[in-house]
């Protein structure tokens, strides 16, 4: 029997820590690309990438997730964010290769930030599963 919480997740590193996103939200892992910037006032949006003729915003959540000392981000994880009924691709800078894993997601317990929607127990590692919308909302309130 398959648990309702069993699912596929993409694990990505940010420095020493790994985080997870539901695999269904991730579309690709992209190599470093030219970040294009212009003036704006949205917190944690670093700029945009031009990928196959499409403009993809880059949301750098590292400062929220691991603090200001996050190491150099080398790749972009491209994930879908929902804006009402509209889905939009977002590039998230990560520090290394990503992996796909299948695991049961446990509900968040204790005093976890609101953007943690679950936990994965992977051998000796606890990985937080992120809710991008809530993460973006935290960033907007900051």
């Amino acid at each position, binding site marked *: 029997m398959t648990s309702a919480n069993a699912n596929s997740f993409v694990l990505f590193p940010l420095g020493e820590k790994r985080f997870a996103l539901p695999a269904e939200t991730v579309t690709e892992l992209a190599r470093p690309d*030219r970040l*294009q*910037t*212009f*003036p*704006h*006032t*949205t917190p944690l*949006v670093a700029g*945009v990438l*031009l990928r196959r*003729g*499409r*403009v*993809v*915003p880059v*949301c750098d959540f590292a400062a929220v997730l691991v603090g200001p000392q996050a190491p150099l981000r080398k790749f972009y994880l491209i994930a879908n*964010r929902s*804006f009402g009924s*509209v889905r*939009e691709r*977002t590039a998230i800078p990560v520090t290394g290769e990503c992996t796909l894993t299948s695991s049961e997601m446990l509900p968040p317990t204790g005093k976890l930030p609101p953007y943690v929607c679950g936990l994965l127990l992977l051998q000796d590692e606890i990985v937080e599963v992120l809710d991008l919308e809530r993460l*973006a909302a935290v960033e*907007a309130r900051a």
Partner: protein
Amino acid sequence: MQKKEARRPRTAPREAVILFTVGATGFAIAAGAVEEIRGLEGLARFAPPFKLRSLARVKHTLARGKKTCFVVDAAAQFGIAASRDTRLLLLRHAAVAVQVENVARMAEIATLHALPRAFTGDERRWYRGLAQVGDDVVPVVAPEAFLTAAEISLLHAGGAQGAAREVPEGAVSA
């Protein structure tokens, strides 16, 4: 026998834009939104009479016959620190001019990309969208975002109080 429909080449409507810079940042504005591009001569210093932060970006006026143009400092509008302004873009829709570092060239854009929804700040008002020019993505500014009708009205009220005074040529900088 069916007649074959004549195939017309599909050409996307293209829009002429003026590319300009403020500091190290490139922008575009619809060519049709600009009435004139000129130098900075003839500017008069202007102190907005109302202590509104949003009006602090208006530092000069330009007399155009009987009209007074309010000059928006684009660097202040977009929060850009350093800009060596040399040009004014006089806008068509209102008595507003924009002080920019340089006007690079004209270009044609085939697609205006909507600003991604991830952007939630003032930029949603500042830009009509994003355009690809060569390998670069440049924001296409919304002319009406430089000064709203209400802001222009307030500035006119201040102008009537005689706040403008002449600035010597070459004295206008970042």
